[in-house]
């Protein structure tokens, strides 16, 4: 189905008739979706519905899975990322990702954040220092780590590690940040910090998040997309979707009747 969402913001990601197959398994079925710029879009749905698969399609993470076949278009800023001539590395610089488990490198806090900028060039030390500080500030971690930048990232708590991963993703100055259940391994206080961070960041970045926590989607997103069996059932302004969904399958899911 075509998304009926009426978002005033400019569309940055435009998915057109997207089908994805893992070998013979049809994982995403004829999906159409527009994702607005500088807003938070949440993907919800039961396990196996295709939400993480679609998220991974947005920075071509599925390319690594053998037997994956994709039809249709994923336009980011008007360019089809599955069209010819796209460099996956520069795509992933533009579309960063944060995973369920915090995965800092076994390096210092500073080196974790500086890793991406160093990979994409060799900025002078002063510039790099500034980028690291700015990224750690944006991820609300600076005040907690500014005196220990040379300390191992692995010494941080789980919640701090996840914010470090967000800082690492922001350090390459992406436009889009993908978050795949980024708080599901965290305690409630760390989860709250990440949610507050997402709300801080949404004015500057386009954030697309997969979450199993419906209330998290309701709390932090502008647009919510409900998936079921590889199909987008409903894509709607979050307040509208959680107060008066159009499709009875959405109502049944968010009311706990299945899933």
């Amino acid at each position: 189905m075509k998304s009926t969402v009426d978002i005033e913001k400019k569309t940055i990601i435009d998915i057109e008739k997207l089908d994805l197959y893992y070998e013979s398994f049809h994982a995403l079925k004829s999906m159409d979706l527009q994702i607005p710029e500088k807003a938070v879009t949440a993907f919800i749905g039961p396990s196996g519905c295709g939400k993480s698969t679609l998220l991974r399609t947005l920075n071509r993470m599925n390319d690594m899975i053998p037997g994956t076949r994709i039809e249709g278009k994923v336009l980011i800023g008007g360019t089809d990322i599955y069209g010819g001539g796209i460099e996956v590395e520069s795509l992933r610089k533009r579309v960063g990702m944060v995973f369920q488990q915090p995965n800092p490198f076994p390096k210092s806090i500073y080196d974790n954040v500086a890793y991406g900028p160093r990979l994409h060039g060799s900025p002078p030390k002063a510039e790099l220092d500034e980028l690291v500080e700015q990224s750690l500030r944006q991820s609300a971690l600076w005040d907690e780590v500014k005196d220990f930048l040379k300390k191992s990232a692995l010494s941080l708590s789980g919640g701090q590690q996840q914010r470090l991963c967000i800082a690492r993703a922001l350090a390459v100055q992406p436009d889009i940040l993908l978050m795949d259940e980024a708080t599901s391994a965290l305690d409630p206080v760390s989860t709250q910090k990440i949610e507050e961070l997402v709300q801080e960041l949404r004015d500057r970045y386009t954030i697309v998040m997969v979450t199993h926590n419906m209330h998290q989607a309701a709390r932090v997103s502008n647009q919510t997309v409900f998936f079921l069996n590889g199909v987008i059932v409903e894509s709607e302004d979050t307040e509208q979707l959680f107060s008066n969904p159009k499709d009875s399958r959405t109502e049944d899911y968010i009311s706990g009747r299945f899933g």
Partner: protein
Amino acid sequence: MIRRLEFDKNLEELRSLLREMGEHVIDALEGAVLSLQQHDTTRAQEIVAADVRLNAMEEKIMDIGSRLIITQQPVAKDLRRIIVAFKISSDLERMGDLALDVAKVTLRIQGQELIKPLVDIPRMAEIVKLMTTEAITAYLDENTDLAHKMALDDDQVDHLYSAMINELYSYMIKKPDAVSQAMLLTLVGRYIERIADHATNIGESVVYLVTGKRPDLNR
């Protein structure tokens, strides 16, 4: 995620309490008008005394609904079911208070002969009892057609009220010594007319419950 079985059980309890509140209001209104017609102060006192039960039911609905919101974090229609239960219980509680006000008029005119036989008041009360039944049925069956029909019933009540006021005002001009009782009877008309408005509010709540949109049936 909502624990459906427990949630549905509690929702059923809310529905059952609202049905009981509706029945209480109908009985209170019927009793209050009869007490007025029959100078039955004992019945009027019983109605006044019974009001605490209605208040207790409203409080119970608030407790159950609040607990459901806190523990189950309902969304969409489930959340509207609770919001609407709060709103309807508040309307029914007010309807009970207004029926009680009618009974209090019986107590205030104790011992006096009625200045005229009551005609419009019992007719209004009959329609309003029907509206209360319709309101509760519309809620229990989620029947928006019935909710809309109540707006027409309300117009009928407003019409009767207006006619009754005109008649009593003329009466007061002709018989100044009857002014005090005639004023009380206009108040009774006002109380019953307000009960009809609250019943119409319940109809609006039913439309909101079913559609998520807020209509204005009380025009």
